[in-house]
């Protein structure tokens, strides 16, 4: 049985997901299990970053995989299966976030007008290895609290681009934003996080440690 070739033709070998998707379309559910196993962690992480709620993230992950399964016929194959899946998960996540905020609109454009982070203010240098000043639990709490404070539109872009490692173009395609819009949100997100983390990570003055021999 011939398999459908991706549009790239002979230039690039087909992405391994293409064969898995074809198997699912042919009725092989175990191939879908493989896709789930491959991407479940990433999808859960994205959903949790956006919704900031564990229960919602679990529901989002389940709904996104089920929806993708049902709509697999609509998957065109001109984008990667993964970015198509992420787009479904992001939409589900934003919907949940909106519900939690009792119907308040949550859009990717929300809060982008904020000036915070557009110009760095806290310019103290950080400790060379700031993580060492905290336990793993404390550090995780700091990182969670800090990213939680970002407006959703910035959080989504930072999560996809920097945490998940999508390219700028893939992030733009996934979110339905232009490349310049992604770039401007990413810069603001990075600078805001940097500014907020400075509070915890900036170099401590030698005089604050008592009893030192230096």
């Amino acid at each position, binding site marked *: 049985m011939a398999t459908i070739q991706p549009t790239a033709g002979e230039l690039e070998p087909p992405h391994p997901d293409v064969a898995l998707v074809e198997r699912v379309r042919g*009725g092989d*559910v175990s191939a*879908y*299990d493989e896709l*789930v*196993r491959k991407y*479940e*962690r990433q999808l*859960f*992480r994205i959903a*949790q*970053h956006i919704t900031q709620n*564990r229960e919602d*993230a*679990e529901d989002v*992950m*389940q709904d996104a*995989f*089920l929806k993708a*399964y*049902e709509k697999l016929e609509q998957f065109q194959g001109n984008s990667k299966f993964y970015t198509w899946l992420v787009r479904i998960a992001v939409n589900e996540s934003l919907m949940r976030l909106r519900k939690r905020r009792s119907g308040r609109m949550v859009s990717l454009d929300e809060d982008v007008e904020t000036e915070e982070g557009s*110009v*760095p203010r806290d*310019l*103290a*240098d*950080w400790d060379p290895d*700031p*993580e060492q000043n905290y336990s793993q639990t404390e*550090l*995780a709490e700091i*990182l*969670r609290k800090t*990213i939680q404070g970002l407006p959703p539109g910035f959080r989504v872009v*930072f999560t996809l681009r*920097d*945490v998940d*490692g999508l390219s*700028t173009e893939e992030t733009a395609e996934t979110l339905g934003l232009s490349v310049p819009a992604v*770039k401007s949100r*990413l*810069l603001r997100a*990075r*600078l805001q*996080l*940097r500014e907020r*983390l*400075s509070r915890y*990570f900036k170099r401590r003055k030698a005089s604050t440690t008592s009893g030192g021999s230096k």
Partner: protein
Amino acid sequence: MTCTEFLAMLDDLIDDAVTPQLRAELQEHLHGCDHCEVTLSTTRKTIQIYRSHELYDMPSGLRERLHAAIMARCKKGC
């Protein structure tokens, strides 16, 4: 190059998406500007720290529930 101009190129520099000529100009600005040097190094660190720490572990049992849900959906007609 001014600090504002440097800042506008910060992401491209971090993402290694600058031409060698622009990189040289950015480096030159960095040599004389502590503020931008700190902004660059701490922004890099911010990204690295988020990338290297898994903040949210997937709950155990979620995979099984998902698998069961997919199988149930499949039985209804797939």
